[in-house]
């Protein structure tokens, strides 16, 4: 594996590893690790760092919805144009063009169901190219970004074994 790929694998596992600990795991110098990370950031490969939250454990639980969007294109308007317009809203947490029955898969977040509903009806649905929206409120999340929620597996191995 190249050092770029190794550092990426480590950051995807735990973005809070210190440069020293990453260096120890990859046999690189801490300074080289910093350089690789800086390069990945400059190249835009790493677009940011965020915590993976289990919202159900928060006192103020956020409301999230997955929204299917259908659009019509014309000579002047591309998918990218519509996407750019939608992505600018801070309520939009994720936006992907997908294959299948609908065009965009949009993830929206807000403080309440009414806030999210209002956002969809007042800001998204009126966009002229959007022909249909189907909103799915998230009721429960079991796994986010590869991390399973739950109590986790206890280490039930014998404490010392041959």
């Amino acid at each position: 594996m190249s050092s770029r790929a190794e550092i990426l694998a480590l950051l995807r596992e735990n973005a809070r590893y210190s440069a020293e600990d990453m260096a120890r795991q990859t046999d690189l110098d801490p300074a080289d690790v910093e350089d690789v990370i800086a390069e990945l950031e400059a190249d835009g490969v790493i677009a940011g760092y965020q915590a993976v939250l289990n919202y159900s454990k928060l006192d103020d639980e956020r409301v999230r919805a997955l929204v299917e969007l259908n659009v019509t294109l014309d000579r002047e308007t591309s998918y990218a144009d519509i996407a750019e317009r939608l992505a600018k809203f801070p309520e939009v947490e994720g936006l992907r063009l997908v294959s299948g029955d609908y065009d965009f898969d949009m993830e929206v977040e807000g403080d309440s169901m009414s806030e999210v509903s209002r956002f969809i009806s007042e800001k998204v649905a009126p966009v002229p190219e959007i022909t249909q929206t189907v909103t799915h409120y998230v009721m429960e999340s079991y796994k986010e970004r590869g991390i399973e929620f739950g109590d986790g597996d206890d280490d039930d191995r014998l404490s010392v074994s041959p």
Partner: protein
Amino acid sequence: MQVSDRVESVPPSGIRRFFELAEEMDDLISLGVGEPDFSAPWSARDAAIASLERGETSYTANRGKRELREAIAAHQSRKYGLEYDPDDEIIVTTGASEGLDLAMRALVDPGDTVAVAQPSYVSYVPGVKFAGGEPLPVPTRAEDEFKLTRAVLEDAGAQEADALVYCYPNNPTGATMTGEELREVAAFCREHDLIVLADEIYAALTYEHDHTSIATLPGMRERTVVFNGFSKAYAMTGLRLGYAMGPAEAIGAMNRVHQYTMLSAPTTAQHAALDALENCDDDVADMRDQYDRRRNFVLSRFAEMGIECFEASGAFYAFPECPADDSQAFAEELIQEKKVAVVPGDVFGAGGSGHLRVSYATGLDDLKTALNRIEEYIS
């Protein structure tokens, strides 16, 4: 009730005492565990569950399910260039441990000498004794990075032995051997007509070079039984599934003992194993990569602490020199003072004293904390 002399002659494993000490401690971080910290890949577990739902709870053929033996043959051919006939050259066993026991009982006569490369997994010497054989310890040396060489075999008198048992990648040292290094061992075994019992349970976990099986070297297939299994590579220790591969007469003899004792390896585990071979290459690669990173971490921390440790290149163990003279006492105190468990090397037989087995089959956070505690303890 009177216990047999044969069993009386085999003391309980030295690991037992450390296990008991460790069990008494709260908040202990154990680097003394000889099995993966991962669970078996979900795909394999799911296949096992599905087989139970279908009601597949009967015995299988003595030698194991035919599809599983075929999959093992294909896997071993693809990965290591080993060619065995699923009909009569492969037997599926209840862990590689059962396979080793079968081989001892099927191939060793009372009074036969079995050379045991050490430090080694704790079961080989008792296995030889239970079969009525005489174990001959062959201590490997720290200066050889615990590899088996012609010199250590000759020094131990292994030329007089009838068989040799060894394990590379090695538990407890993490040592591996290249094909080139194995050539010298192979030549020795041909010259002195030794049977080789090659425990390759850690074959999938090498970090510097690919694993070579001694059975692929000229003139070795006919005198070698190879042992492998699912415990280490696929993190399936508790499913108890291994296999042995060798010439038909050896596997046939082992199967005769197996027929009368085990009958067949656990059926549910065989379903998991078949799925593991078909679908879990990526899981194994991912676990291997994680072990490799932890290995680098551990070796680099030991270097920072000034603890001598050769570059272990396989399994999930490092085998540093013990910073104190008495490794047993050091390991005991480390548990009591710092709540970190490691296993003193002498537990694994000749050549192990003065060293510690440090298992990195532990998540990085715990590994880091445990190594910090060791550093505090020695400074």
